[in-house]
């Protein structure tokens, strides 16, 4: 998995870091600055003993260019606070945040506004649309505040509205739209400024399950077109598995594990992580590469791709005869291992037993 061929989705290493957080803390309590040393480190002994709340504790991670990075945690785990620290909607207590080559913590108010206008987009859980503005008025807001003329900004807003599939609704007001449509407006607004990095704060949590599924598909469709760098917050592990390249799991303000869905399922760092992964059908996250054995002979019933999940190749595998073995090939079409049909059958029955 070292060198990525062009056009492939980047994995955990290799791509350049777009956003980089180091030792970020957000502490609530009296006289927080006194907890923080000259080098930005937190006096943890006093933090533990005092009457402080660590909404974010010592979070360090990198988001790579073009990656979908999902931060998953239950309510109160600090995931939304962490997201707002990355945009400095909330001022972190200490830590370093680098966005592209810039030090976000040192950015002035004016620089921050400039970055939000041109480089960042954000989608909110409850849509956060202005009720007094029509769809086009809401979507054009980020362009309007940049001082772009009416004709141009409306044309650009219209393009984004088309992109999210709301063409023909541009004169509607938010309350005339369904929840799913309103969030499409929220998405369009966040994309209007053509951001480099896209923050989504539980964007589909307020929607009905069926609509949520539809919006996730829509999100994946958009990402296939746009290739944005994404930080996506959710409390829904299924959603995280479905959308993420990598997932960071948060609990009580701290990140307890970062990894691909496959890594989390195969090697959960703690019991807490394992509990989340238990309900997940293994076939959905495990790739053929994770299950393959050494090559023993050359009598293969077919081929499977090493880095693609078992689920998508399931039909071919199960339709083969009992005892069949599949060749596992990598991105360069080299055979790297063998996958016996019985291994997959065993995996499926094991996850059924769990349920």
């Amino acid at each position: 998995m070292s060198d990525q061929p062009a056009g492939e989705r980047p994995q955990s290493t290799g791509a350049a870091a777009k956003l980089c957080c180091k030792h970020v803390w957000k502490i609530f309590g009296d006289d927080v600055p006194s907890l923080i040393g000259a080098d930005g480190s937190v006096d943890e002994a006093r933090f533990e003993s005092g009457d402080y709340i660590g909404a974010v504790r010592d979070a360090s991670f990198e988001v790579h260019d073009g990656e979908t990075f999902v931060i998953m945690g239950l309510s109160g785990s600090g995931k939304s606070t962490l997201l707002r620290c990355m945009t400095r909607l909330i001022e972190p207590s200490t830590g370093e945040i680098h966005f592209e080559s810039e030090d976000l913590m040192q950015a002035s108010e004016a620089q921050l506004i400039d970055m939000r206008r041109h480089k960042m987009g954000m989608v909110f859980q409850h849509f956060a649309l202005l009720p007094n503005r029509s769809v086009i008025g809401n979507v054009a807001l980020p362009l309007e505040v940049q001082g772009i003329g009416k004709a141009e900004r409306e044309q650009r807003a219209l393009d984004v509205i088309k992109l999210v599939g709301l063409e023909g609704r541009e004169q509607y007001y938010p309350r005339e739209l369904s929840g799913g449509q309103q969030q499409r407006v929220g998405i369009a607004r966040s994309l209007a400024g053509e951001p480099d990095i896209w923050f989504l704060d539980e964007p589909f949590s307020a929607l009905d399950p069926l609509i949520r599924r539809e919006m996730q598909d829509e999100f994946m469709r958009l990402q296939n077109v746009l290739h944005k760098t994404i930080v996506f917050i959710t409390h829904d592990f299924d959603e995280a598995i479905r959308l993420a390249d990598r997932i960071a799991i948060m609990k009580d303000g701290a990140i307890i594990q970062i990894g691909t869905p496959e890594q989390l399922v195969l090697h959960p760092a703690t019991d807490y992580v394992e509990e989340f992964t238990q309900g997940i059908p293994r076939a959905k996250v495990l790739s053929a590469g994770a299950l393959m054995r050494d090559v023993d002979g050359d009598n293969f019933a077919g081929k499977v791709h090493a880095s693609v999940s078992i689920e998508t190749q399931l039909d071919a595998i199960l339709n083969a005869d009992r005892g069949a073995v599949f060749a596992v090939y990598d991105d360069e079409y080299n055979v790297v291992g063998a996958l016996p049909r019985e291994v997959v059958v065993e995996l499926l029955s094991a996850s059924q037993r769990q349920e």
Partner: protein
Amino acid sequence: MSNAAVSLPRPASLTLNRWVLLWGLMILVTVVLMMSKESLPWAFKYPRAWQLPLAGWISDFMKWLINSFDLGLFTFKDLTRGLAWLVEQPYTLVRSLLSTGFLSGVGSDAVQVFPRISWLALIAGLMLLGHYARDWKLALLVGGCFGYLVVFGQWDSAMVTLSSIIIAVPIGILGGMLLGILGHRSRGFRMVLIPILDLMQTVPVFAYLVPVLLLFGFSPVSAMIATIIYAMPPMVRVTLLALEHISAEVVEAGSMAGCSRRQLLWKVLLPSAKHSLMVGVNQVVMLSLNMVIIASMIGAGGLGHDVLTALRRLRIGEGVEAGLAITLLAIALDRLSQAYANRPPPMHHTRPPALWQRHPHALVFLVIVGLTWALGVYLPALNTYPESWQITTGAFWGDLVKYINVNYFDTLESFKNFLLLNLMVPFKRFLLSLPWVAVVAMVGLGGWQLGGWRLGLLTASLATFIAIVGLWTKAMVTLYLCGLAVVIACLIGVPIGILAARNERLHRIVGVIIDTLQTLPSFVYLMPVVMLFRVGDFAAMLAVIAYAITPIIRYTDHGIRHIPGELIEAARQVGMTRGQLLHKVQLPLALPHIMLGVNQTIMMALSMLVITALVGTRELGQEVYIALTKADTGRGVVAGVCVAFIAIISDRMIGAWASRRKRELGLE
């Protein structure tokens, strides 16, 4: 298991015992004090030698401000005169438009250059506004209200009043919004602002009429300035609240869209808060109208002047007609501004409409104004409603009062005397016999018990202030009138509220009555009680009850209605009767909210009490009123601050209790 059950109640009973002990001690000390009255006279009557001549100092400061304070380039007096001139310009313009017409020349030599807006055009315009804001029903209501003004010959006075309202209201709204926005932005400014607002909303208006009078002179302008000072604080508060309550996500969405602070304010915050801000606008309108009569004491003229003159001369008929005119003006403006605030949010258009399609109401109005101006040249009745078409009911009201007094005088009189002798006078005597030291201590203890030692310290010091400035006796009389009025208002109001909460039809009827009562300017309440009971404490108390009863009804109704439906269902499911439901579930849960209603009732009672000084009570309000007639700044301000302190003491104590209780019940 059983151990735990036994040990649980103990801490609770222990803390209860401590308070019972303290209160027992307090009562004991008071009784001992009262028995040894002869040896400790200072504890009963605050010695004159210890008094602080605060009133004198304030008056001296005021004199210095007006006569000697020099700001370098100009004096303080120049500054106030300048301000007055600034407010006067738009006022003159509006008054010319509505009332006098545009004149050239001065005094009786003046020649009308251009006529005022015809009454017909103005009524038509307001009706169109009503239709624009809601529907034809509202248009008819507004038309009816202003029609009364024309038919009953109140038009000229009403236009003078309306002109000052039209100027005072926007200044109050903009000023209030500005202060609110500043308070929202800066924590430090807010910390200064909020105590000032508390004081401004509890100090009786009369108290600052005197300084305004001295600074700006006897004129419609100073009346407007007093009106603005009176009507602005709620707008500041509403703005603060409205900005605070915008969903955090919306503000964040604005920031993430790249708004600068100014863009955030204009493009995100204010539009999102618009609906809540309109509530403030409505309040400013209503408070300005409430000030109409009081403002006429320092030169407002118009309807307020008519009412005040009628009241002073006891010409009931004229007073009722002018008072009704203010009320109808208030109702019309209230309904208009409410309807405007509640206009449905916009819907999309299929096709962009033409200019005349977008503003049909404005267009029709302009046509009518033009027509009436043009035709007015040939038909003077269009400009001025002819006197021969007017009607008056003055004689009817006079006769009615005469009839009541001839036929029911004895009944009314004995009712009044019975209550005075058996309830009011004994209670007053009791309060006056209490040593002030003990009352201060009790107020402090109460504050401590309800809201901690800080609150106790605050309430005790505020009470001590009243003694120090030498107004203790008058404050006790205030307490007696206000206390009785509030208790009676609760005895009547709570049952009505409960009934309204349980019966949908009654709820609607009561709602309409309360809404109407709340639009009446406070002065209007004086007229019927004076007609029936003449001047004195009893009449004053009735007026206070009538004025202050609305919040207790509203809060009781609201408190009971907003108990979670699940709880009511659970109570029904275990088989409670309606009576059990009421006293085991609804009342206990609604009590914190009801107490907030009591608090509001107390606030309104105190503000009304000051106005009843006109019908001859002898309490703090009278002190303020006397100061007004003598233009004695210090005396008025000190007495006014004492009223405010009484209000603040009760507000803080009830507020502390209610919020603690709500927390305990998990209602917040």
